[in-house]
């Protein structure tokens, strides 16, 4: 059997290269479509083949030498465990949705835009398929660079400023995490970036507690910046507000989860003695900063896209709380929530752009009554908002529930505060639905719709949205399909 994991990384890259060749636009769109579809199909296939109970921690393993094996202990080491699998599937699905949405968009210089998205997609598949810490970082950066360019070139208002700010913040975060990872590599004495070998080495106690404390702090801040941990979050709403829709979908939906994934897959298992020192701070920043403070900031937003951006920053607070809880229930909840939030926030960004195309504005005060003109769009948006609030029946509910249950053992006070955050998300979520879709038409929107009557969602827009929605509902009604591999892997990883 060919190495499907490698193929899922190489296919989008190859498609991106092919897009450089001169060809009619339709042919290029077709090539890009294949580049987006292949990783998604591979991810779904591997999910169906994944047997969590056969006692193997990593599945579909393969290893390649890029020339640094003997000297630096770096190999391209691919494989999926139960924590990586859900995110790998998420990357495939959101990538396909974002890709299809981009193909139907009328972006300027479309082939270049699609090419950059494909590079990003390749990086995302690589991040979650890597068992080598170095390549884990490498693929993250591979996905990150196109984001900057897409924000700067195809972005909306303030794109230059937003792109610059995002680049500097995220580079700082990435550099801090890189030093943290090098520190693990060096201080553990393992001199390899192989995650399995590192784990074995550290189980023998080769990393002193003091070192673990420092390195965990580095990684927490570094990864935290990448996940918009308060107070390093300011790049996120600004960047997402300016980013073109597909880039925002992929970044907010998938790439941002890199930091959380790194904390769960690398920092927590490798630095168990460093965690305890920092969880207090982490929980304080997560609940006080991300959930409550940013929650109230989100309520105050008038710009629809900025609101979605802030709401995604707020939801990261739950994820950090689950990590601070540091027990199997909480961590399992974080993984589930990462997937659910990725799907729902991508859907919200997609729908926001579709709304913009009908209202010509992101300002919610100038919208109103869109449901009369576009009932299907309204139904999608309402469902996506319900998902993001955490209504039962949709995937987010299970993730948040597990996080709250896990966090209760850690701190009842923080959990109570975090749960009250759900009310905040209900307030801004429902208010945005009301302002955009219901009530009387504002004069501004009446003028826009008089010029060009807004249509309902086209099939080209509906299909990617349906894809995301179906995944949200499927996990919502049958969470076991993800929770079994996640629980098995987390129990195995954190057995002590």
């Amino acid at each position, binding site marked *: 059997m060919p190495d499907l994991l490698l193929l899922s990384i190489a296919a989008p890259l190859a498609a991106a290269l092919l897009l450089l060749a001169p060809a009619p636009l339709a042919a290029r769109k077709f090539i890009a479509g294949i580049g987006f579809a292949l990783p998604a199909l591979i991810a779904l296939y591997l999910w169906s083949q994944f047997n969590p109970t056969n006692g193997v921690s990593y599945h579909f393993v393969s290893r390649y030498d*890029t*020339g*640094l*094996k*003997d*000297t*630096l202990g770096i190999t391209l080491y691919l494989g999926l465990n139960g924590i990586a699998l859900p995110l790998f599937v998420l990357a495939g699905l959101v990538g396909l949705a974002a890709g299809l949405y981009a193909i139907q968009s009328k972006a300027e210089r479309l082939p270049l835009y699609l090419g950059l998205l494909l590079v990003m997609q390749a990086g995302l598949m690589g991040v979650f398929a890597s068992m080598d810490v*170095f390549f884990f*970082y*490498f693929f993250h*950066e*591979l996905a990150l*660079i196109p984001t*900057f*360019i897409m924000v*700067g*070139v195809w972005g909306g208002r303030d*794109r*230059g400023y937003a*792109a*610059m700010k995002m*680049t*500097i913040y995220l*580079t*700082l975060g990435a*550099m*801090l995490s*890189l*030093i943290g990872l*090098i*520190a693990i*590599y*060096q201080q553990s004495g393992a001199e390899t970036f192989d995650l399995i070998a590192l784990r074995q080495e550290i189980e023998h106690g080769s990393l002193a507690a003091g070192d673990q404390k420092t390195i965990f702090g580095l990684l927490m801040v570094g990864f935290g910046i990448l996940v918009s941990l308060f107070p390093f979050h300011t790049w996120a709403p600004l960047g997402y507000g300016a980013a073109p829709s597909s880039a925002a979908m992929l970044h907010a939906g998938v790439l941002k989860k890199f930091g959380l994934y790194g904390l769960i897959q690398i920092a927590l298992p490798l630095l168990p003695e460093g965690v305890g020192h920092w969880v207090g701070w982490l929980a304080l920043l997560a609940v006080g900063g991300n959930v409550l403070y940013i929650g109230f900031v989100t309520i105050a937003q008038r710009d629809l896209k900025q609101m979605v951006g802030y709401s995604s920053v707020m939801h990261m607070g739950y994820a950090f709380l689950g990590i601070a809880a540091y027990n199997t229930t909480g961590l399992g909840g974080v993984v589930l929530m990462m997937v659910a939030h990725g799907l729902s926030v991508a859907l919200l960004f997609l729908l926001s752009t579709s709304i913009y195309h009908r209202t010509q504005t992101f300002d919610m005060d100038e919208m109103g009554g869109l449901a009369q003109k576009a009932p299907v769009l309204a139904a999608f948006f309402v469902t996506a908002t319900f998902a993001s609030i955490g209504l039962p029946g949709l995937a987010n509910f299970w993730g948040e529930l597990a996080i709250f249950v896990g966090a209760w053992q850690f701190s009842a006070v923080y959990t109570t505060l975090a749960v009250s955050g759900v009310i905040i998300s209900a307030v801004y979520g429902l208010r945005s639905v009301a302002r955009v879709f219901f009530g009387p038409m504002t004069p501004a929107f009446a003028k826009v719709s008089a010029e060009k009557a807004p249509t309902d969602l086209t099939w080209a827009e509906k299909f990617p949205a349906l894809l995301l929605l179906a995944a949200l509902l499927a996990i919502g009604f049958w969470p076991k399909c993800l929770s079994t591999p996640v629980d098995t892997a987390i129990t195995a990883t954190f057995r002590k």
Partner: protein
Amino acid sequence: MTIDQLQAAAANNLWAAITPEIALGVLALLLLGLEMILPKARHSVIPACSIAGQLGVLFALALNFTTTPYLDRDTFNGLLHHSRDGQYLRAFFLVCSLLVSVLGVVALAKQKMPRIEFFHIVLVVTAAMMLLAQSANFVLLFVALETITVGFYILVSYTRSNPLSLEAGLKYLVLGALSSAILLFGIVLLYGVAGNPNSLGSTASPMSYAGVRQFLAANPDNFLASIGIVFVLSGIAFKIGAVPFQIWIPDVYQGAPTPVTAFLAVASKAAGFAVLIGLLPVFQPYAGLVAVTLSIMAGATILFGNLAALTQHNVKRLLGLSGVSHAGYLLMGVVAAQTVPQAIGAIYFYLFAYLLASFAVFAVMTHVAGVNDADQDLDHYADFGKKRPYLAGVLAIGLGSLAGIPPLAGFMGKLMVFIAAFKAGLYPLLAIAIVGVVLSIYYYFGWIKAAFFTTWRPPLAPGETEPAEAAATPVGFPAGLALGVLAAGSVIFGFFQGPIAAWLLAR
């Protein structure tokens, strides 16, 4: 000495060991000969001859890369020591001179200047760099270094109708002479103490690396020797542009013709580092002193280079100052190399990635520059992505690699140097380096922003017309190929470092 002894000594010299250098010298003379023989209308074939000749030398060097019988041997009575690093550096400098020649063809076409001497001097300088990298004696070190510097005096002020070029030449001359004096003073101090028959462990050959090392080992805290070491290091710091000896960089980089700037930025810097690495074992008994001196320089260089580059609008000055910061990262690697041998491989890989990226950027600049070579501003890159997509793509890859962004080769170089620095325990320097990398994103990205992001421009006032655009330099075949190879190299070596990295890092 009888004639027989001289003949025997000459035979012992093993002239064949420096065939590549001799070949370059012959090629350089051949170019001048051709200029005399050929009619003026046919002079355009001479640069092509130079490039073809260099390709031939490079090919021959590659064939004998590991099989040359002179590996790990001293020749010329200990003046030269041939090592695998020496082989690598020979190839490195040859590639540099090839690229400079290709760029020279493009750049000189815009100037009414004699063409042939340019290629001649480039070859001579390259040969001197190759000798410098293999020198094992302070006399040869100084002579080779002076050959390089004198060559650069001419090259820097080559466009003599441009006052900025002349100013650059003068600055380089004055400061270069000062640095040579400092270096020479340091060498003389070492020579004096090591050769003094009254001092303990004095040596009969106080100019050779081995002799000096032997003396230093016997006198681990000789005051004069310490001064000598610091002076030698300072003299080299001038060449690599390390703080506080970097003041000449922005002006000289701006005034020099763009290909020469590239030559200075890559080859001259690499030559400085080759000398530093060669001297590390010599100064080993004074490792503490060397470490302190170089660490302070490295930290200051990283910070100064990045901070000063932040406000630059002239891209040549910007690259000059960013090059200062690269010298800082490399110096950090040199400090690490005192205890971690792998750091030497890391430095060489870093230099290789730096060569690919820098020449890509300089090649693009050569095509963007108008008649006034010193006037190259960020504003000249407006809408570059739309107007000249090929050049813009190469520029983006080059700048990304310089900024150290994965998946480009520059990132791998930085990673290797950082790992080496971490192994050597240089935590404060690493912290400074991280600050530097984040700062550097601002100006590299600012350039990309200028080239790709559409910027708002005020509408034309009534009666005002669009400023006339200078005729764009077309991308010819050799330059286009070089651009493509450089960009592809930056990408490929970012993904797959392959045998080159394995070979360099294995120590």
